[in-house]
């Protein structure tokens, strides 16, 4: 390594390398790392965007620590993630397994299940708001046939978060499905043939070949969907605005409220940093524990 500078050929190569990545590095530097640093700075201030920021030290953080609503927000975000991620993965896995068989119109089904991923979340929310409407909604109309009383899906604190989770799984499972399908295609045929020769049934083949060899794929989905669930915002904003009784208020929604409705940029960036630390922590734990259950070929 140390003689890179002495070898003119290598030096030129390195120089070219840096030159080629410079647009990306400069872009990322300005729009990501500088912004990241600035947000940490802002989190120690009180700033309404209109007048100059005022330094307040750790005030914003200590406020969050003592704020009941913020604690509830944290709880909601974790609850959403803990339910949404595994349920979503199971649905994705089942869809992928079903659509990996040789059924008719397989590609049409794959397309249908993937379509919600391509649709704007806001457009989806508008439709689901109607589905969930207590008086005109399709869901309650069907339930009424079975004698179920009017359920206020998005306005009852017992149901609201489940309504969001259900919708979120519907929206996102197509994405997981496509990735798992790719993972399934990567599993060599020979393993199944060998297992079949040894007399392994379908169930055994699934649990001893398919599932272990899918773990790297599942691990990838686990990481990405955990992060995106912890950052859930759009469906909360369009469906419930954090209500009823703050039962669907999530961290990113609170950040939005603070920053762009009440213009407390300091408190908003402080919340963002709390979320960042949580995501970082959870991701590190997930990476550390992967050795126990993720098998690489």
């Amino acid at each position, binding site marked *: 390594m140390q003689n890179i500078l002495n070898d003119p050929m290598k030096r030129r190569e390195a120089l070219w390398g840096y*030159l080629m990545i410079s647009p990306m590095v400069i872009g990322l530097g300005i729009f990501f790392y500088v912004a990241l640093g600035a947000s940490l700075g802002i989190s120690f201030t009180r700033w309404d965007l*209109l*007048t100059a920021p005022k330094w307040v030290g750790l005030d914003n953080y200590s406020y969050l620590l003592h704020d009941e609503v913020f604690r509830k927000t944290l709880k909601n975000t974790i609850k959403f993630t803990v339910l949404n991620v595994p349920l979503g993965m199971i649905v994705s896995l089942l869809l992928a397994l079903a659509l990996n068989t040789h059924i008719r119109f397989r590609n049409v089904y794959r397309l249908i299940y993937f379509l919600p991923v391509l649709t704007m979340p806001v457009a989806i929310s508008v439709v689901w708001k109607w589905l969930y409407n207590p*008086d*005109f909604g399709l869901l309650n109309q069907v339930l009424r046939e079975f004698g179920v009383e009017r359920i206020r899906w998005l306005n*009852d604190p017992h149901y609201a978060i489940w309504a969001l989770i259900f919708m979120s799984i519907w929206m996102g499972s197509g994405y997981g499905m496509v990735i798992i399908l790719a993972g399934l295609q990567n599993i060599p045929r020979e393993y199944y043939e060998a297992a079949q020769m040894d007399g392994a049934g379908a169930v055994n083949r699934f649990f001893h070949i398919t599932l272990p060899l899918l773990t790297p794929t599942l691990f990838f989905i686990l990481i990405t969907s955990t992060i995106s669930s912890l950052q859930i915002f759009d469906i909360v904003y369009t469906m419930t605005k954090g*209500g009823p*009784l703050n039962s669907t208020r999530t961290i990113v929604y609170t950040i939005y409220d603070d920053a762009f409705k*009440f213009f407390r940029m300091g408190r908003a960036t402080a919340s963002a940093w709390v979320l960042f630390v949580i995501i970082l922590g959870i991701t590190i734990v997930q990476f550390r524990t992967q050795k126990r259950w993720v098998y690489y070929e």
Partner: protein
Amino acid sequence: MKMQVFALALIMVLVLSLAPTTTTSARDEVTITYAIWDNNQLPAHEQIMDAFMEANPGIKVDIQVVPWGNYWEKLQTAVAGGEAYDVFWMNGPNFPVYASRGVLMNLQELVDAGNVDLSVYPESLVNLYSYDGSLYGIPKDFDTIGLYYNVDMFDDAGVEYPTADWTWDDLKAAAEKLTRDGNWGIAATLEDQSNYWNLIYQNGGQVINEDGSAVLLNESAACDAIKFNYSFVEAGYSPDGATMSSVDPAIQLFPGGKVAMIFAGSWMARTYADAEPNINVAPLPQGTQRATIIHGLANVAWSGTKHPEEAQALVKFLGSEEAALILAQSGTVIPAYEGMQQAWVDALPEMNLQESFIDALEYAVPYPTAAKGMEWNTKIAEVLGEVWAGNISPDEMCAMAADAANEVLQADE
């Protein structure tokens, strides 16, 4: 070596193309931006801009419609980024926030120089847009609230149309009779300005104290008014919060023929005139007294504009009789300019606009504002929203709403 020069040049081009492009317009033409939030008023404003640009060659105006839902966040971030609109709409509750922070251009000079005659605008609106003895906004329009009703539904139910003599009891009785066939008699919405604030003043109550430092919803006159509004939901004469939060009562339920009556502002007259059902309007019913909330928008200029003279010229023109006449004839809003109300009334002859909105000026109550922006009001809306959705009992709602709002007003920023 040649390759390197070529590659470097290529990178330079790439980098430069990423840099913001500065538009150098020919012939010294200046382009200024004008932000509005109501798409219904866009055609009228395009006409006004044509007239302005004809009278002021060399100035081009770019109208930007920013939807109400994110108007304020866009404005605030634009101000912070040093790229705000040169001229834009302002409303009463936000005005103190922006004026006190030096965002708005002081227009008092224009008044003192005799360029703007304030006597043609309602005094309450001039006061609304003055701060520390200086004018910062030129009144654009005003609005009052009326009782819109679906004529067909009244006919079907055999109920007599609302009149100026209606009381709260008449409203209640009509709502009961009109609640039939899966439809509701009224939408008892949680809109403050266009709904329950009016009831509070009609009952002799107050929303907020004189200097805007404490909310008074917990006092009995105000609280009874809110309870009266809730009684429609309780009795089933109005859809509840669960229904109204997913289907907008003013935009969907009422013009869609699911609800027979609604309190709404004069700015909705055009929309309802164009709606499918036959809709007319009457003055608000009276409680212990008559009251309707008056509010109005103003045109303001940004203090950081690069083209202060052009921005001033536009603000001035927007406040002119010529602009007011175009606005009035579009039938969208009532211009603030004196004498222009008749043109607005004439634009929609099929509706009872004169009595409902213009004669209502006699008993109109100014829009209540606090010195501290709008968060207090959001807190009230949150509490009442839970009551309307059935999650909090209505017994304690006035105290809870007042406490939540006062906490915000008393917090030191």
